[in-house]
């Protein structure tokens, strides 16, 4: 039934393997490859946008590059990398030997590489060029690549649903004795909220994609305007999923930084209950705001106001998290390791993205900035400054656990600084360009926007280069880094209470949990030993 090839061979990463740790690594590494591909597409766009006029890519190619950049980044990078963390960590964190459905787990991973190849293949048959939002009727009339795009996203959705079923079932049924819901690590809470969103929102996108694919392939009339088809319907189906999708991408990220702050501040997380609750609140509210992407569309104008209100209300639970993190580091003994730096960077950049989200939610302002670079800037601050920063933080934080070796702290800091500078340089000017009147999804623009775009291109280049020290660090340290202790950060969550990397089936004996996971500074907890390898501070 459950197959575990001999541990320690690299081949298991290329085979059908049901160990959640192997699957987690498969997810993370695969999605990182797609990240690099999508990032290279971004660099193509930035090169084209360096100056006005469409000199490098013609308009059609540009649209294909832009569509695939957005789609790969969302469907093949952030969503699967987050699932990778969930796979690797959830069983370890709740004290289980594996996921509830190990074979389903392997299947949900193995759907991803083919889906990715299908999406990339669209380039060769006249690519998808309707943006990641694939608005009809443009996407109905588009070239054959658009069908591949729809099929690929459908498969990825099914994979995500299978993963979510697995996560929720695992957390409900496989917690170690004493691991009550009130003691679940906050990352696990984040994954729970995310998985519930995946289960409720993704199937609706699948249904919508079925309609688009049928229209394109079979010739059904769902979106044929002349027969009475309604383009706004697709927008509702798409955003009913894709707004929750942005919270699917941020809640686990918030979970990751919630793990990191207490460990490196050596203080209990501030307001555990409110952070866990706010994840659930964001998930529930997140299902009610989708039409804020459609304020300027043909939808009935009277329906817009409730969506404005619900969008703005999300600031409250998000604010609770941010203030709780600040209170966690307040009075702490901060160790500024690379994961901690990325987590702090997460707060400062996500904040910019979140606050500009409020501008977008205010309908009168949105009617000016919707479909401009202001939105592009918002989405990169929340997704790159937010989700990607947190993913980097998590990759560094769990690197010793996953690989059994220590990364190099100095190179990590170089990565952080370049990443921080690059992000702000690339995306801040986009706010100004959008406000001044630059629409998004254009290969060519008015010369008055040149200077903003030059800055953005330079920032993008710095971002691309900042990836190199990370890759170097990850590869060299994984191969030859110093051996890491089981618990180099003296952390209290369960994944650190087993060896690095953990053995097959994780724990020699299933632990019994008696306190909460962030009991730093208390008599009963482990005394804080100095961090093993990197000298912090």
């Amino acid at each position, binding site marked *: 039934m459950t197959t575990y090839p001999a541990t320690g061979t690299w081949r298991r990463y290329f085979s059908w393997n049901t160990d959640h740790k192997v699957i987690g690594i498969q997810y993370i590494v695969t999605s990182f490859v797609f990240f690099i591909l999508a990032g290279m597409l971004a660099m193509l766009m930035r090169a084209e946008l360096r100056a006005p006029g469409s000199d490098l890519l013609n308009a059609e190619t540009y649209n294909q590059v832009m569509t695939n950049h957005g789609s790969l980044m969302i469907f093949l990078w952030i969503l699967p990398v987050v699932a990778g963390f969930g796979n690797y960590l959830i069983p370890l964190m709740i*004290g*289980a030997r594996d996921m*509830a*459905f190990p074979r*389903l787990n392997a299947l949900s991973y193995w759907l991803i590489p083919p889906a990715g190849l299908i999406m990339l293949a669209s380039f060769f048959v006249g690519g998808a060029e309707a943006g990641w939002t694939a608005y009809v009727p443009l996407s109905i009339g588009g070239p054959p690549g658009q069908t591949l795009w729809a099929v690929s996203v459908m498969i990825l959705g099914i994979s995500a*649903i299978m993963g*979510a*079923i697995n996560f*929720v*079932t*695992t957390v*409900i*049924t*496989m*917690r*170690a*004795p*004493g*691991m*009550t819901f009130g*003691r679940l690590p906050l990352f696990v809470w984040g994954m729970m909220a995310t998985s519930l969103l995946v*289960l*409720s929102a993704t*199937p*609706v*996108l*699948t*249904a919508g994609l*079925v*309609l688009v694919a*049928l*229209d394109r392939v*079979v*010739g*059904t*009339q*769902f979106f*044929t305007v002349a*027969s*009475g088809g*309604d383009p706004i*319907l697709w927008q509702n*189906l798409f955003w009913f999923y894709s707004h929750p999708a942005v919270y699917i991408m941020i809640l686990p990220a918030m979970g990751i930084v919630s793990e990191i702050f207490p460990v490196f501040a050596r203080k209990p997380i501030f307001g555990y209950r409110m952070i866990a609750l706010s994840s659930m609140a964001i998930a529930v509210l997140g299902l009610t705001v989708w039409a804020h992407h459609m304020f300027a569309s043909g939808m009935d104008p009277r329906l817009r106001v409730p969506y404005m209100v619900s969008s703005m209300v999300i600031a409250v639970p998000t604010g609770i998290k941010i203030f709780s993190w600040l209170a966690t580091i307040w009075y702490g003994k901060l160790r500024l390791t690379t994961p901690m730096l990325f987590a702090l960077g997460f707060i400062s950049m996500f904040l910019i993205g979140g606050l500009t989200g409020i501008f977008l939610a205010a309908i009168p302002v949105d009617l000016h900035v919707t479909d401009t670079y202001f939105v592009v800037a918002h989405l990169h601050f929340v997704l790159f400054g937010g989700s990607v920063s947190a993913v980097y933080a998590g990759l560094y934080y769990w690197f010793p656990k996953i690989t059994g070796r220590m990364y190099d702290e100095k190179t990590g800091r170089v990565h952080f600084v370049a990443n921080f500078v690059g992000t702000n340089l690339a995306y801040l000017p986009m706010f100004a360009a959008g406000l001044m009147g630059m629409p998004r999804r254009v290969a060519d623009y008015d010369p008055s926007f040149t200077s903003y775009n030059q800055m953005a291109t330079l920032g993008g280049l710095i971002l691309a280069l900042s990836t190199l020290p990370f890759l170097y660090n990850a590869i060299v340290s994984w191969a030859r880094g110093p051996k890491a202790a089981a618990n180099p950060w003296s952390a*209290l*969550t*369960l994944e650190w*209470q087993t060896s690095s990397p953990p053995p097959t089936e994780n724990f020699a*004996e*299933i*632990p*019994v*949990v*008696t*306190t*909460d*996971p962030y*009991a730093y500074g208390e008599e*009963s*907890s*482990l005394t804080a030993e100095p961090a093993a390898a990197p000298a912090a501070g």
Partner: protein
Amino acid sequence: MSQQAMTHAEDYSAGLALGVDHRKIGMWLFIASEVMFFGGLIATYLHYKYTLGFPEASRLNIVAVGVNTTILLTSSLAVVMALSSIRAGRSGRMSVFLLLTILLGATFLTGQALEFSHLYGEGVTLTGSVFGSSFFTLTGFHGLHVLAGVVWAIVVLVRGLRRAFSAERNMGVEVFGLYWHFVDIVWIMLFTLIYLIP
């Protein structure tokens, strides 16, 4: 997190305290996502019904489909009987009821096929109008779910004949039953929305 070693590894799984098998929870979650999938298709159907009026809907044969609906409902009863049989340890009786389920499901599918071909004869087609597209897609996807259920029922039947289930071990039957009832309930929704409500 302080902790102490646990000697009996088989005692672990705090979740078991809830007394729910993981396969059942998994099935419930799957059904939840299926509800949302059908929700998307139903919303599409209702949206167009509301905006376009769907005059073609008058061609639908409520009586014939009503009979078909009864057949599907009966099959749910058969699944209930199959489960209670095996819970009482009566494996043979379970097989009979599973067979009945399969036959009723297949009858329903045949009825649906007849209905479809009748509608095609009247010129209502998948690609001919928004009504055709919405109607055939929605009921067609339900039909595919019934078909999957029939195949699953055959698998359960075969496993039953090989004595895979007993009064104590019958989760395979129970989980299948959850799915079958779900498919049934979806049909009741569709029948009401498409055929009954004008």
